[in-house]
């Protein structure tokens, strides 16, 4: 039982969650990054890996957030200025979502509010605020070949975000493949949630304690190498 005043162990910073998510990406793959924490992932990939970042507003091939002069026509889906790689392309929203729904995006890294034991994702609507915005999240959750969720393991109030059944409105059903949090890397499969790695200094039992759904703990669980 979780004590009301208990807090989870100190895990990874937002930057280190992004770094760990970046390690999950295959060289040469086409990747979409969601708004917020996932945006930081672009800063942690090796240029030599040739990963192409797609932005749903119509860019394939941006390298990261630009530090140069702002051009209002050269932004990512979060409105941030971006730099392009050689070989980048622009296209309209219909083409962009043909890429997304049509299976041409190898992986998406999105933020999450809740993930269920079955891999259902809730990441757009906050009941306490009486709203939210969907953007391209539902299309990405349905269409990306691999869906990686990068999020804090628990809420500010210490409630698990990984739950048996989402009580927040869903983004999509059975769509999540991997969850990367400040405490752990967890794989989602037909047999359930399986702990793959823990953050440095965090035990598998601590991860299980702060996870609101059954967690399969293999005999050997690696510590994240960062």
């Amino acid at each position: 039982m979780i004590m009301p005043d208990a807090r989870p162990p100190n895990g990874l910073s937002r930057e280190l969650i992004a770094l760990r998510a970046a390690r999950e990406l295959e060289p040469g793959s086409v990747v979409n990054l969601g708004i917020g924490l996932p945006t930081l992932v672009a800063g942690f990939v090796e240029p030599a890996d040739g990963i192409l970042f797609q932005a749903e507003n119509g860019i394939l091939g941006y390298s990261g957030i630009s530090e140069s002069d702002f051009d209002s026509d050269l932004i990512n889906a979060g409105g941030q200025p971006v730099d392009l790689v050689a070989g980048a392309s622009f296209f309209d929203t219909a083409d962009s979502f043909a890429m997304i729904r049509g299976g041409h995006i190898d992986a998406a890294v999105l933020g999450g509010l809740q993930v269920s034991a079955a891999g259902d994702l809730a990441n757009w609507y906050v009941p306490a605020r009486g709203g939210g915005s969907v953007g391209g999240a539902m299309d990405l959750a349905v269409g990306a070949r691999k869906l990686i969720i990068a999020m804090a393991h628990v809420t500010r109030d210490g409630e698990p975000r990984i739950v048996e059944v989402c009580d927040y409105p869903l983004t999509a059903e059975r769509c999540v493949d991997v969850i990367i949090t400040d405490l752990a890397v967890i794989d989602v499969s037909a047999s359930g949630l399986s702990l793959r790695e823990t953050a440095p200094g965090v035990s598998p039992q601590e991860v299980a304690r702060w996870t609101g759904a059954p967690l399969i703990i293999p005999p050997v669980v690696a510590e994240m190498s960062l």
Partner: protein
Amino acid sequence: MSVEVFDSPAAAVADIPDGVTILVGGFVSAGTPSNLILALKQTGQSGLTAVANNIGLGDLLDELCEDRQLTRVIATFAIRASGTRSSRFEELYRAGEAELELVPQGTLIERLRAGGAGLGGVLTKTGLGTMMAEGKQTLELDGERWLLERPLRGDVALLKAWRADRQGNLQYRLAGLNFNPVMATAADLVIAEVEEIVEAGVIPPDQVGTPGVYVDRLVRCAPIPVRWDG
């Protein structure tokens, strides 16, 4: 086919009546027809429905909420799930003075595409099992489940392109395309603001992003820089 060139954004939108549905191109700051949006604020039409990717992300569409010109918005991004600032639209929405239909981005563009292309709807998996499917028809075809999304059209479309020629052909720059080319097909009256109007033939035919057949009105104006800082 003829395209009419107007002297000012205000003149280009002056005869738009109250109560119409307006498609607004752009994505946050890119390809956004900010001059035409501000012209609507000047001319003061009311009871408008706006169809746009976003409202309240540094865009000037939110300005139309100051005098309650928008009573309905169809968008992918309108209510923020975090942060403390709220847009004028959010305030109207929470006060029950404006309606919102939230649509997934890929569904919004395909509904517009269907509306502009003479198609009866779109079958998508996006939204299945979520609030977006409530009240909508689902179909099972060859063992797969699909959500039926209906076409969407506007009375008017407001677009932004880099430049136009006197045939109405539009050329876009960088990520300024986004919703503009599809919205150009899906409204009865299509008005584009551009930074430059050139003679026919100056835009190479293979660089035309929107063929002039879709465009009714042009107005040349310097773009208004907008930016979203989160």
